[in-house]
């Protein structure tokens, strides 16, 4: 149960990080969103066997981590949370795709290459998404989405889901606390109580959500989630996006590690 409360506190860490005032944090949220979207598009566009070409894309997260002064550990931990799904998707590749592939002097199955590329791609994309939230914050991100003319119903859905997760988790924590105090010798929740606990949870969450919604309506909420005025886009914000977009385009078109490699071997020869 302590774990749930901890994760509740941890969940908000991205919001806390987003309140810093570094070069990256001060950038316009729309430009950061566009940069991330172009990064994701380019990374996903690589073929199954192209691991080498992906390597230059490590520069982007490394740069953002450094410039935004973000702690690496909490963000890496969040990537680990999704890793079981990614491994689940990729782990069968080595068995199905057994064609040999020459790596230096060793022959390995091509399945391992695709597995590695899935791992790398998902690692990069999840990191980029987390970095976007940790440097922008959910509210400003929603503002950026609205600026991109994403329908407000979707943006609202996103924001409210994000808000209600904590409501749900608080209720879970309370129910589990009440349960564990009266069932001291049990590990976890006995299956006979699963049904009623889940039922309780959903009813309580409904109630709570209803009260929060009423409180919002009483303060003039009419379907639009206003997160304050938008900053103007400065030349520096625009150049941040253009700079990265150019880099992504170049790194997509030319295999930079290969070029550097051939350059060095050329010099040696």
């Amino acid at each position, binding site marked *: 149960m302590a774990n749930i409360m901890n994760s509740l506190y941890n969940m*908000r860490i991205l*919001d*806390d990080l987003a*309140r810093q005032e570094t070069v990256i944090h001060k950038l316009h949220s729309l430009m950061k969103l566009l940069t991330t979207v172009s990064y994701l598009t380019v990374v996903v566009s690589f073929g199954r066997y192209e691991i080498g070409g992906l390597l230059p894309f490590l520069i982007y997260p490394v740069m953002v981590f450094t410039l935004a002064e973000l702690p690496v550990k909490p963000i890496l931990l969040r990537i680990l949370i999704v890793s079981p799904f990614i491994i689940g998707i990729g782990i069968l590749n080595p068995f199905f795709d057994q064609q040999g592939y020459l790596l230096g002097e060793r022959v390995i199955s091509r399945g391992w290459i695709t597995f590695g590329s899935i791992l790398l791609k998902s690692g990069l994309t999840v990191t980029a998404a987390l970095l976007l939230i940790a440097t922008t*914050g*959910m*509210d400003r991100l929603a503002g950026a989405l609205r600026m991109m003319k994403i329908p407000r119903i979707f943006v609202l859905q996103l924001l409210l889901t994000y*808000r209600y997760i*904590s409501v749900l988790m608080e209720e879970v924590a309370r129910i589990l606390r009440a349960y564990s105090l009266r069932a001291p010798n049990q590990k976890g929740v006995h299956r006979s109580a699963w049904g009623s606990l889940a039922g309780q949870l959903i009813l309580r969450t409904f109630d*709570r959500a209803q*009260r*929060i919604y*009423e*409180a*919002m*309506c*009483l*303060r*003039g*909420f*009419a379907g*639009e989630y*206003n*997160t*304050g*005025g938008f900053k103007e886009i400065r030349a520096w914000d625009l150049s941040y996006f253009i700079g990265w977009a150019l880099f992504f385009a170049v790194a997509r078109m030319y295999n930079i590690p290969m070029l550097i490699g051939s350059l060095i071997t050329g010099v040696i020869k």
Partner: protein
Amino acid sequence: MSHHKLEVKDLHYSYPDDHKAVKGMSFCIYHGESVGIIGANGAGKSTLLMLLMGVIFPSQGEVCVGDVHVTKKTLPMIRKSLGMVFQDPDDQLFMNTVYDDVAFGPRNYKLDEKEVEKRVLNALELVGILHLKDRAPFKLSGGEKRAAAIASVLSMHPDILVMDEPTAALDPKSRRKVMKLLTSFNHTKIITSHDLDMIFEMCDRTIVIKNGEIAADGVTSEILVNAELMDACGLEIPLSLQNCPVCRTKKV
């Protein structure tokens, strides 16, 4: 200043399960009054507040704020002049920072961001938590949360403040602070509470509710000392007016 008047005429409300929560209530609250609404659990206090705020609508009768009837159409206007502080501040505070929470109302009324900032800082200063403006609401203490919830309503510049149990779950010192704060406001105040000592100190007028009906409506100092009435309504006279527990001296 008739627009601060709040009038309730022959109000009836039944829940979908046919439970009659409010049965024919009528009263009028004038500008600048502090009115306490008291009653046992389930007497209909919270339902009455919800009816006043237009969260639910009466099956019969009407609520008027100033000269405007509370209907779906007039809600935006009504809610501008009526500010409600919830019993549980956690229901009211849901944004990332205290600042954003207090700004939520003004921003919904499409105020200029400069005006929003002015109002937010003003409200936070009024309740004495300006230094907490960048903190996450869920990390505040009970008293601080209550203050933030009050600020989030004050920033909308309401004419009438409606408060559901403003001193519930507060330690004695925080309770005193909140009471002092509320006394310092010139708004018309409607307060429901089981904290009868607080009602005794803060409200000039008290409405006692019993089983969905008004059992008494009058001057607080007369109603709260009426032990018979209080007992019949499932209440007691305020602790501060009861006999001294040590020497048994009679106070009333």
